[in-house]
């Protein structure tokens, strides 16, 4: 994906944004400008800058090979699962697993990664929860 495609996406986003802005309900009390105008100005700016990117694109960025891209996709999926699992499983277990996964994918030996995950999780738990008193997600086990 180079600047041209990105600009195209930006243009589509701008059009959608402006269309949505015209759909904003008006309330019976209003100031001279109203809630629609400023978003429309922003949408126009978004569109113009996208157009400029299409017309004068920079050199293509270096995208990672497919394997790496899948790697990032996996990490995103794991982080999303982590977000949903936190309140269900509890902070310590969820964090240990997630940190271990990330560390493993960054090239740590699996066994070492598990240890790193547990250490990260417990470390954060001790510092932020026990010492600083921050509330972390509590699972059914209470931690």
């Amino acid at each position, binding site marked *: 994906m180079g600047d041209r495609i990105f600009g195209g996406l930006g243009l589509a986003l701008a059009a959608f944004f402006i269309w949505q802005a015209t759909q904003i309900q*008006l309330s019976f009390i209003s100031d*001279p400008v109203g*809630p629609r105008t400023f978003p429309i100005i922003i949408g126009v*700016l*978004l569109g113009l800058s996208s157009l400029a990117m299409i017309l004068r694109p*920079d050199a293509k960025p270096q995208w990672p090979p497919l394997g*790496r891209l899948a790697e990032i996709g996996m990490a*995103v999926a794991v982080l999303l699962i982590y*977000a949903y699992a936190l309140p269900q499983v509890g902070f310590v277990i969820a964090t240990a697993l997630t940190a271990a996964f990330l560390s493993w994918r960054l090239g740590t030996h699996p066994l070492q990664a598990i240890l790193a995950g547990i250490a990260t999780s417990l470390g954060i738990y001790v510092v*932020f929860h026990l010492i600083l008193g921050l509330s972390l997600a509590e699972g059914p086990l209470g931690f």
Partner: protein
Amino acid sequence: MDALSSLVDGFSVALSFQNLALAFVGCFLGTIIGALPGLGPSNGVAILIPLAFSLGLDPTAALILLTSVYYGAMYGGRISSILLNIPGDEPALMTTLDGYPMARQGRAGEALSLSGVASFVGAFFATWGLVFLAPQLVKVALLFGPAEYFALFALAFATLGGISSTNQAKAAFAAALGLGIAMIGVDGQTGVPRFSFGEVHLYDGIDFLVAIVGLFALSEGFIFLEHRGDRSGEGKHATVTMGRITPSWKMLRFTTPAMARSTVLGFIAGVLPGAGASLGSFLAYTAEKQISDKDGTFGKGDPRGVAAPEAGNNAAAGGALVPMLALGVPGSGTTAVLLAVLLALNITPGPLLFTQNPDVVWGLIAALFIGNIMLLAMNIPMVGMFARVLMIPPKFLMPIVAMISFVGIYGISGSTFDLVVMVIFGVLGWVLRKLDVPLVPVILGTLLGNLMEANLRRAMTISDGDWGVLFGSPLAIGLWTVAFVGFVLPIIVGKRLKKRIHMAKEEASSITD
């Protein structure tokens, strides 16, 4: 002197035990964050904001902690520049030019301590500049009405890409994207929901802290993952010999003129909109090279080449606080993040801050002085310890950073929805970085969008719908002119300037390699 007596009051705030302890912790963490390649002042402060927030610190204390991190990170950036030839953050780039050659000559300790002193000089005098300049700027800012504020915000966006920006279309795109994100949620003036698609979670808008942590901290993690940590110092351990770890008086005397000149240049670069610390250190280094490089020693380990950029970038860091505190309009990425701190604490920055919350402002400024002295005291004897932090490989570090980001955001709201939004912003940040779209305007747009719109609508209500009011005063016209010039100038000179920064870097690496 008005400013001086306020400063004395500030010291009485900052000298409490809690605030001193926070300044110490902030300086310590900041130096580590700055030293780690890939983690700079903006991500460092970004990760810590939600934490400071959920710890329930009062505004002054939170600001003291976070600005100490900011100053600390500016100090820390030089450590990996000198030891590994990898800048710990962007402003420290120029320090690699002479710092790394010095380290290879076995004078790493000297280079580190000298740059520590230079950082101190730059930051210390810049803080004095802040004390005297900010109240003057406040006097001007008190003349601003809503129309002038609207123009000022436009100026901030127009110049944020910076003079060295090569693609203004991308900077504008980023600003529009940020402003668009700010529009999500219930309209403050009429109470109608906008861009919420019936999703109740979106009625409050997107929390800018979530956006900041996602864009800065998480996207950094994805970059690590993409390169599997190969771009940082792994396998290239700091094996250089330290040598003596205090600079000799002779060397300090030798480099004093360089530090003095660079401090002035850096401070000016920091105050000006859109310049920031990177340009400060670049200007300081090139100016010093022009003035002092008579025997061609620059780039080969000249101590003045270490002192100049370090004094320059730390002075710029202090200078950048002037517009942020006095006008509420930040001049650089990290100050944009600090602005987020103020907004999160329900403090509206700008001229009224000085009259309504003098304890916050002057306590903060006093804390900067204290932090500076702490940093100097910490950095010279403990530099070996900080250098050891560089040995932590990213494969352990990155997961920790990611997990702490989650902890901070979860601590604020306890909502899974916010965590998901943060991950989305992380991916967005990664894509934008790959495409060379600057992230700071996105953040600034998200932060200032609602304020900017409110000022526009207030101006229009006063003028009863006449758009001419936006250009209705000489002050407003002046601001619009600066905004226009600031946006167009980089299109003309940006490519050349960037090339020169690049050339300076390449020239140096061809010498060291």
